[in-house]
């Protein structure tokens, strides 16, 4: 069975079609976690609000990490908060994705010189897409979420789960938690 799974660069003949079906379902029910740390959280709220209405794409906010697929780093991340966010990330069930929203989560942004702010979410989390803006408009966030949908669409998820591949982007940090 393992040999069959391993076949081919793009995935295997057994799991390929199942993957497509699963991806279709996963793509259209992208639940993000209601979790904002700073200014971007306001735009995150507006995204779920009536003007942008992220529900149109099946993107619904969930209050708990156990039910959500996407972690949106909405705002400045301080060192005090970083270990908590990593903890939340570990609590989410695979497959999971991370969006860095706004300048602070991208690179630390305007607080790069500050003593208390982590210079970018990718220093302790595997970030999939980066949204520029300070804060980004709610439509930018929808664009970012739609990029995650594109990523899901092409992903050979079952193969990854089978072979237990680790995310190469994930910076494992000892002693953070």
């Amino acid at each position, binding site marked *: 069975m393992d040999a069959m799974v391993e076949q081919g660069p793009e995935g295997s003949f057994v799991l390929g079609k199942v993957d497509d079906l699963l991806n279709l379902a996963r793509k259209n029910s992208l639940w993000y976690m209601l979790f904002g740390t700073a200014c971007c959280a306001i735009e995150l709220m507006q995204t779920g609000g*009536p*003007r*942008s*209405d992220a529900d*149109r794409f099946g993107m619904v906010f969930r209050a708990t990490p156990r039910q959500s697929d996407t972690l949106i780093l909405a705002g400045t991340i301080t060192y005090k908060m970083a270990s908590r966010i990593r903890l939340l990330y570990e609590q989410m069930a695979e497959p999971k994705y991370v969006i*860095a929203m706004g*300048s602070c989560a*991208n*690179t*630390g*942004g*305007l607080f*790069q*010189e500050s003593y208390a702010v982590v210079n*970018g979410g*990718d220093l302790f989390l595997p*970030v*999939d*897409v*980066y*949204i*520029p*803006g*300070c804060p*980004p*408009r709610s*439509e*930018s966030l*929808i*664009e*970012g979420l*739609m*990029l995650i949908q*594109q990523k899901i669409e092409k992903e050979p998820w079952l193969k990854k789960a089978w072979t237990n591949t680790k995310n190469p982007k994930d910076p494992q940090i000892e002693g953070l938690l």
Partner: protein
Amino acid sequence: MGQLAEYFNAIGRTILTCSDGLAVTFSHLFRKPITIQYPDRTAKPLTEMLPERSRGILEMDQELCTGCSLCSKQCPINCITIDVQKNAETKERILNKFVIDIGKCMFCGLCVEACKFSAIRHSKEFEGTVSDVNRLKINFVEQPAPVAKPKKGEDPVLKPVGSIIRKYLADQWAPAANKSSDTNSGGKSE
């Protein structure tokens, strides 16, 4: 007995006040919906619907830049890096590099207010999502060239807003061309 009466009174008030609220909610069935169906079901692209002063992603027109670095001096967070070198033979100033780190920018508009030649400005573009954060370090100089020398009293020829930045953010999944765009060739050659 009084307590029992109060209990039922409270239930009655609850039902009454809740139905008041429900009436308001119900009236929304007959109001105009306000959702903007971004991205594809709008009458025109959203960037065209944004107000005139809207501060989107920064863009720089190489044909107008004089390399004076007023903008980078005004920037409180140093997210603009300008490299101007003097050609020893012709005494011309060559603009080698003009990098704006959009991933760090805070969209305050101080650089735009500082620029006297309308070379740097906020476009209305907001769709800049990328998969590699280094791609947000955008080098607006494709070919090192002499800096612009605007004549006095002449209005600069402006390109349409957003036409410069759009091509740099076109392919969202492309990796950064160069790991660090601090090298001279750090553009997004596609």
